């Protein structure tokens, strides 16, 4: 078994959840790596959509931006951005949306807008982009984020995209018919909303990770499921495909690997 980084196991754990039947709305970075890893391993028929308008795309290298030419070159077709957001995302055609964020709370609400007051920001982040409507319009949401107490926070200064609000039932109360976040893949563990309360609960620890390490990366007192599993270790195949993908990508982007 090769050694692998926490970031690699986070990507691999996300990839494993995807199937040939999924239609994924893919964000840049970890989600893109996870989706393409799934496509290049166990889910060759998975459908990948990037918000730049590329439908059913099959990139050979990972895009740096959401709209790299590679995505268009390998797409079935490319639609305008208004059509993408109206007919494809809002149209309810996406089974899985991937999100990340600067900050997450215990109900999987996300902040990518601002730290500090909105009108007098301490840190101005990039903003929501597609996230608010990805969070509400996709069948379910997978979140990938590395843990840390500045990221997994007790209280968000700003809700950029809605997870489970203040708990179970809040989505339904807003008229949302989609599931919202069902999985949070981190560098240390996998969390899922508790079926009764919707509070994020650790369901699986990555190999070699302790409960204390996970708690150290989270600002609120973490709940653990009754049976916490161990995330299966990364396989040789998963690692080699993922590393090949990253190596091709770095070369393509003109960055020393």
């Amino acid at each position: 078994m090769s050694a692998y980084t926490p970031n690699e196991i986070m990507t691999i754990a996300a990839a494993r959840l995807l199937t040939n039947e999924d239609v994924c709305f893919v964000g840049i970075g970890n989600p893109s790596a996870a989706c393409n890893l799934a496509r290049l391993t166990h889910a060759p028929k998975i459908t990948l959509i990037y918000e730049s308008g590329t439908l059913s795309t099959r990139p050979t290298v990972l895009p740096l931006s959401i709209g790299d030419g590679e995505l268009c070159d390998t797409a079935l077709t490319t639609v305008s951005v208004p059509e993408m957001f109206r007919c494809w995302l809002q149209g309810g055609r996406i089974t899985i949306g991937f999100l990340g964020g600067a900050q997450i709370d215990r109900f999987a609400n996300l902040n990518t807008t601002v730290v500090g007051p909105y009108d007098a920001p301490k840190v101005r982040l990039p903003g929501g982009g597609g996230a608010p409507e990805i969070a509400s319009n996709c069948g379910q949401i997978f979140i990938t984020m590395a843990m840390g107490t500045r990221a997994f926070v007790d209280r968000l200064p700003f809700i950029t995209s809605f997870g489970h609000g203040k708990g179970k039932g809040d989505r339904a109360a807003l008229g949302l018919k989609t599931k919202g976040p069902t999985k949070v893949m981190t560098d240390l563990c996998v969390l899922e909303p508790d079926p009764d309360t919707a509070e994020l609960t650790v369901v699986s620890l990555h190999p070699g990770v302790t409960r204390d390490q996970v708690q150290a990366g989270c600002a609120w007192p973490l709940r653990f499921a009754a049976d916490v599993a161990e995330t299966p270790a990364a396989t040789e195949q998963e690692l080699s495909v993922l590393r090949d993908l990253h190596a091709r990508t770095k070369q393509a982007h003109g960055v020393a690997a």
Partner: protein
Amino acid sequence: MAEFMSLRDAIATHLKDGDSVAMEGFTHLIPYAAGHEVIRQGQKDLTLIRMTPDIIYDQIVGMGQARKLVFSWAGNPGVGSLHRIREEIEQGRVAIEEHSHAAMANAFEAGAANLPFAVFRGYKGVDLPKVNPNIRSVTCPYTGEVLATVPAVRPDVAIIHALKADREGNVLLEGIVGVQKEAVLASKRSVVTVEEIVDDFGPRNANAVILPSWTVTAIVKVPGGAHPSYAQGYYKRDNAFYIAWDKIARDKAVFLKWMEENVLAGGPESFAAQARRFAVAAA
């Protein structure tokens, strides 16, 4: 009918101090050459509208030409912050009107459709409507559902980069087309830079994305005019530059020196050489 002009004349004639301007291009076909001309001419008090401000608005905001920024995602894609924009916002030196992508895309389409607003299913449970008074709602007259609204975007000027124009001034787009067509149709005036001007587009898909000549104000030939963004079939995105920009923009003095050397002292002719480094074989 579109008028063929020099870049200098097109920008000087059609963009005035205080204008609202949308320089669109969703990662692809971002009109950098035109943006740099705006920086050289120094128009002030601009309202800059763009879904993803990208480096082009980091540069214009950093040069102090913007009064207000209307946007939905202000980052350097895959890299991190746009440091000039971030600093200007954090210091309160530029006003912002912030939306989601869905809202902005709908707002451009509504502008192109000559509607005063757009309706969409969005902003559920989030905080942006609390800080942006332009996010409102209507009630569906059939189902009673409350839906989000956004005012149409109707800029004074749209500036885009496209692949080709023909001699009549029709403009062809292909690839990731973003909201460029909507931006032109939504605006009072438009300046379109193109990679090349051809006698005629020749055989093409019957549904090719084309802006007819009579919807465009000015056309300027600027080969490479989208670098470090890209032009499908002409040259690739200069991803290394996007990564390198992070360091340039982080420090204001470094940024200003870079702008002095690479923009203020430059001209549209420099873009062709940049793009040539990333040229792709024609399809």
